[in-house]
């Protein structure tokens, strides 16, 4: 267990998430979806979080990325303590440092591929947003799709636009939540190859949520989450899982 990281960019200490379960009034029950999670990810590392559906993977990812706030415990992202920040403060931490790739792509329908990629750059007031967006799209092989809208693209192409969007801002950390979940196997593999190629080029820290052991095996380290409890898998265990 490698708990002594020199330079952690993502840190969770005793993080729990409790939500009010379904049912109203007195029938509402507190439901713990994450139990005292401890996690540290060093700069440049690629970490996989695996687990069955409903285990709490997405919940953990959203906490690590500062999209949500924990019920208890401490969170740090890129050296900022997230606990003291409100949603706007957390957005400011994310801006320019964090990239995302989602299972359902999450592109904006009204915008072209180019505009989608340029959007986060423009949000951060980067002057040559459009040029950099163009370059990012060329890098994912969509040079001829700049003016297309998401609806005019296949699922694989949409996920490549999402990758371009994530990497165009050269983020320190990339969070990916089941990026192949909505794609067929072959397309999924292409997207993953692209993701890892880009990560290698930019030396980006990667937090990858998946339920695919083969994909998880491509990461430096693996965690497994079951019923809201996180544990790290030994490297050799992970190795056998792929075999």
């Amino acid at each position: 267990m490698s708990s002594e990281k020199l330079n952690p960019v993502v840190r969770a200490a005793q993080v729990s998430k409790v939500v009010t379960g379904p049912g109203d009034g007195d029938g509402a029950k507190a439901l713990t979806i994450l139990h005292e999670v401890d996690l540290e990810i060093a700069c440049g590392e690629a970490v996989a979080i695996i687990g069955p559906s409903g285990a709490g993977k997405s919940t953990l990812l959203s906490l690590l990325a500062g999209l949500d706030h924990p019920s208890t415990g401490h969170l740090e992202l890129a050296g900022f303590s997230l606990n003291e920040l409100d949603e706007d403060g957390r957005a400011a931490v994310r801006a320019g440092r964090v990239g995302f790739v989602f299972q359902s792509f999450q592109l904006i329908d009204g915008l072209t591929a180019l505009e989608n990629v340029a959007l986060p750059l423009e949000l951060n007031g980067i002057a040559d947003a459009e040029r950099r967006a163009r370059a990012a799209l060329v890098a994912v092989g969509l040079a001829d799709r700049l003016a297309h809208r998401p609806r005019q693209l296949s699922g694989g192409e949409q996920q490549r636009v999402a990758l371009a969007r994530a990497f165009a801002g050269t983020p320190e950390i990339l969070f990916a939540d089941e990026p192949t979940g909505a794609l067929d196997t072959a397309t999924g593999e292409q997207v993953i190859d692209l993701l890892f190629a880009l990560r290698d080029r930019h030396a980006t820290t990667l937090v990858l949520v998946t339920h695919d052991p083969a994909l998880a095996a491509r990461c430096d380290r693996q965690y497994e989450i079951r019923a809201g409890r996180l544990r790290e898998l030994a490297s050799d265990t992970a190795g056998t899982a792929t075999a």
Partner: protein
Amino acid sequence: MTPIPSPKTRPLPASLSIAPSIAKGRPAIGRIAAQGLWRELQSGLLTTMLAALIVAVAAVTAVGFFTDRVDAGMRAQAAEFLAADGRIDAPDPLNTIQHQAETLGITTADTLAFPTVVLANDHPLLISLKAVSPGYPLRGTLTIQRENVPETLAHGPAPGTVWLAPRALALLGLKPGDSVQIGQKKFRIDAALEREPDVGNVLAQAAPRAMIALSDIPATGLVTPASRVSYHLLLAAPPAQRAGLFARLKSKLPKSLTIERPENSQPAFKTAFDRAARFLGLAAMVAVLLAGAALLLAARHYNEVQQDAAALMRAFGASRRTIGKIYALRLLMLALLSTIPGVLIGVLTQQGLAALMHSALAVALPPPGWTPALIGLGIALIALLGFALPALVRLQDTPPLRVLNRQLAAPPPAAALLFGVGLAAMGLLVWLQARDATLTAYVLGGLGASLLIFLGLAWGLVRALRLFKVRGVARFGLVRLAREPLAGSIQIAALALGLTALLLLGVVRGDLLDAWRSQIPTDAPNFFAINIQPDQVDALRGFMNAQGIHNAGFYPMVRARWTAENQKPIHLDAYTGQAKRMAEREFNLSTTPTLTADNRIVAGHWPGVGWSVEQGIAKTFDWHVGDQLTFLVNGSPVTAAITSIRKVNWDSMRPNFFVLGPKALLARAPAQYVTSFYLPEPNVPQQTALLRAFPTLTLFDLGRILAEVRGLIDRASQAVQYVFIFTLAAGLIVLIAAFHASEAARLRETAILRVLGARRSQIMRALWLEFSVIGILVGLLSALASGALGAVLAWKLFDLPGRFDPTLLGYGLAAGLLLTLILVPWLGARITRASPVTALRG
């Protein structure tokens, strides 16, 4: 492998849980439709549609019930103007016919009238004597006054007594209790006769009225076979048998006699009611069309939201037909569900409107019938079929594979279908409501044109926005508009439509109602004077000026009989009903060098060398410019061509004529002059002075009719204001629907933006920019549309020149920006509250 998402990983729409029941045997379509309907109503998804439908149904039924009742009330009131349901007029006694009528089961009463003289202290006064039988009046009431207390009675004077018009009392210097001599009999004056129902044609009643009992007539010795008496037989029958009984009586009448029915007794009232009905109808119609727009928007939104449910039902094996049936059935249920509260609100509203009109109507309104409720249901169905169904038909084409890949969606409904069916439905609705082809064409054309202009302008502007080089999220706000010109323009058009309704309500309505009220200005002439000899004109003018009376000019008038058209003698038998009555009567011809403001030339030229005829009579007799008309004037025929056709505003209460001829044509005829003027109340001393100075002159007091018509217009315009509240409600629902429609997309986009690091302030800035542009655009568009609509209404309803009120632009812009000021914080609070986590949950 792609896993099938379980309800655990993605919260599914409520209606999905019923999907498995499709798989067993016959699909339980009714149950699925009903359950879905109930859940979606609870969750608020269908609430906009329901609200829109309720408003549409309520508006239509309220107006329907109300105009139905007023129509029936009008007929009752018209009967009152005749004092009967029907009347036969003849120059000879009608005893045989009266007997026949009574054998048929018709209730009768009879009256006779003739001009004669009353003597009081040897002072004679020309009066119009009317003798009435017991039973008179069969419909309506009389008002008399004994000691300054008005009394309403349903019978005539007792034998031996006389009721005299206040004018006669004033001229004779008498009061109730005094005596007068009529013929050979002395009568005690019992009361002043303030009001009798069947005054008939005011112009025919030249002298003030004296009313006695019919049984006193022989004692007066005034009626001999040679005297000029008009006999009237009044008829009444229950509504159900009326038409049949009258038809049977009619078949027994000699050819020269007809039964006069009360339809057209009071044109001034009829006009006012027609206008009110049209105005109410239009208000309801605009409400329905706005509701239609709201339905269209809501249904598009509903279509998007329902795709998951449709996909899952298909995945579970439901056929396209089954899905189509489920949604069609759900719409049907929605129609029924909206009809009940809609009709209820409609009934309550019409009750309120009826109460409001109560004081302006002399008769109680009959209870409402059931037709408007059915029309309400019809409207709900048409609106749903026309505006909602087209947006939903493609739901059945949702690919079942969508359950695996949400990117797959049903093909969007064809724009042609949406707009084509919508337009057809609109046409049907407008026609149902207006039952007036021209008005339908105007309203539809106007709405279609403004919608096209809205879309065109919005689209052009939205495109132009792309040229702006705005950075950052601010740019996103504009790009959002520019990126989806159709969706953006539809939203702008919908907002503009809603705001147009508001401006119509707030600004244009006031202008229109003022215009309507000012049709009868406060100093509208309330007296008519006829029988003015040519040599009296100057003296009379001088007298009036000295009294401070403003007259509307003196017009020469000659009596003439129409004898030939295009050199062919006319046959009275060729005409029926009103046309026949008009053709038989003598025409009042006049001549004038200049037309008053009441006249507008609609065909031909003015001035011309021939006749200028009024539009309505030209239509009745099928006269056209160029036709040769011959009138017998003072025994000699005058033939000339029609050189112009005029539209006349009869409401003005000024003297106007069906037929005008140039001076030269009428020079040979002995003309008398007519004038009208305004005398502020109380005016009995001035009347007396005038009649003393000009004893041959005949004066008509129109004060009561004027007051009644004014009261009616006041009440009716209030009623219109209340009905406009439905229009307002529908406009607001359109606004809400427009937001609902875009809210889901906005929520999702905001979540993405926040994930990407956008701050609240950045999102708000984009929202402000987007909605400032929308606000300005919508403000301008709605100002133009409401102005244009107001001008069309003024022109079509009031024959006023349509003019554009430039302050509307100011109001429009202010309203548009106010909309922005209200909507942005509201919308901002809603969408920024959403956590960015939602982006992770697809």
